[in-house]
């Protein structure tokens, strides 16, 4: 699968409280959550974001609360992929489990700037910055996780066992 979009760029330790503030967690409706995505760190994000856009951030993206509402809000806002130096572990897990594409690549995370046009190939792990022409190689997922993603998330993957 290949995705392409414009980059929204953030720094270190973007936590789930700013991705989707707790005051909106009285719902689990995906579109309602998306309407407040990134509100406390970037209040115009919701106005700017276009389907297919990509979030690029530095280390420890998604730290804090275990709320799955965070990757859900990002995915429902139209973001096709999140690239970061590192992800907080529960966010990493949740993204995989709900089928939000994420890639760890420190070099790409540091280089890529807001507004760059970026193309990501998940099969090869190659990230290409179309604005600068520079390419980066991200670590591909291990087969165990590939299986969860291929089946369309954890619940589909375990469905056969139920």
């Amino acid at each position, binding site marked *: 699968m290949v995705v392409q979009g414009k980059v929204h760029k953030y720094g270190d330790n973007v936590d789930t409280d700013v991705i989707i503030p707790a005051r909106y967690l*009285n719902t689990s409706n995906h579109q309602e959550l998306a309407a407040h995505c990134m509100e406390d760190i970037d209040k115009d994000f919701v106005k700017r974001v276009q389907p297919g856009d990509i979030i690029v951030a530095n280390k420890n993206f998604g*730290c804090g609360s275990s709320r799955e509402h965070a990757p859900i809000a990002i995915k429902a806002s139209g973001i096709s992929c999140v690239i970061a130096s590192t992800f907080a572990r*529960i966010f990493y897990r949740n993204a995989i489990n709900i089928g939000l594409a994420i890639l760890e690549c420190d070099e790409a995370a540091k280089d890529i700037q807001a507004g760059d046009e970026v193309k990501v190939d998940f099969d090869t792990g190659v990230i290409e910055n179309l604005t600068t022409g520079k390419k980066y190689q991200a670590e591909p997922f291990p087969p165990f996780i590939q299986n969860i993603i291929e089946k369309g998330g954890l619940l589909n993957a375990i469905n056969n066992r139920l």
Partner: protein
Amino acid sequence: MGMTMTQKILAAHAGLPEVKAGQLIVAKLDLCLGNDITAPVAVNEFERCGACKVFDKSRIALVMDHFTPNKDIKAAEQVKRVREFANKFDIDNYFDVGRMGVEHAVLPEQGLVGPGDCVIGADSHTCTYGALGAFSTGVGSTDLAAAMATGTAWFKVPSAIKVELTGKLSKYVTGKDVVLHLIGMIGVDGALYKSLEFTGDGVAALSMDDRLCIANMAIEAGAKNGIFPVDDVTLAYVNGRFKREVRIFEADPDAEYESVVKIDLSELRPTVAFPHLPENTKTIDECNGQVKIDQVVIGSCTNGRMEDMRAAAEILKGRKVAKGVRCIIIPATQQIWLDSMREGLFDIFIEAGAAVSTPTCGPCLGGHMGILAAGERAVSTTNRNFVGRMGHVESEVYLASPYVAAASAVTGYITDPATL
């Protein structure tokens, strides 16, 4: 190569003689947990995937603690959804208003988690139960849905950092100060994907409430779990409470650790984490009397236990909350509420001019019961001080122990309890 304590518990629950860091395994769970924010999402997923029964109705805990007593109509609808699910499957451990406590306080107290367990919870502070010698970690709602259906979860076996504790804490220094100091040392991603394994002579002198507080904040260093060895303090705590068999696991002498962090408990000072990250720590000596505050919150899964209530009372006894400061005290469970009431702590709190609330997460996550306005500052015994965590994006949260929080309530500035 030997295994860490965490690796041993994971191997036993995966039915494997041995596991290695980085290995992907599927492990059997002793308990899985959800709350009123994460369980509704899990219930949706559970139903969507066509599961028609839960794996074991006695091994699921659903705790309605975040927005309860329901703060608004939407929150009430969310809880209703979970309540109906719990009724349908006759879930034994469904905790609602009147029985409810903050999840990570109520589960150990009610003996639902114990030594040697493998536990997941759709709440990041599920790592709290490591204090009891369990492997326990936070996951998301989809993991919870899968766990409720299958009784299993997938894990990547973590590597570990060893935290060697020596010495004894001095007066007014608590488990909270230990863990804030540790996070200040290694940073909010210092233990990312790893276990924090606490060892050393210093462990023995730490009370169970201190250990629960320390393990609770392992996630604030990015850790997958934090874990304490099982000793006399643990056994005394679980004895008569924990309903399953106690299983004691110990790290092998040749277990591999990525690094070793040493902390001499006797050298620690009361510690405060400044906005907006738990790693922004200062000792009380670096900030005493310098930061003016508007609100104090004493409670949460980090510091809402009996020792915390007693610490707050020790400071507030015969004193008054400063003019212009709101002091909100929230015992974390019904039992702690009852014990505090019987010990006369509420007389002290109310006479000091503090408010006492029924158990709830409430202000900890900016839900209700103490939201901050723009520009306001709170000293809180909770575990996170991210932007907007307790209310307006321009408000600030300073994390501290109940001693420091109560002393700050008295003066209106962040204060060293020893200087009162």
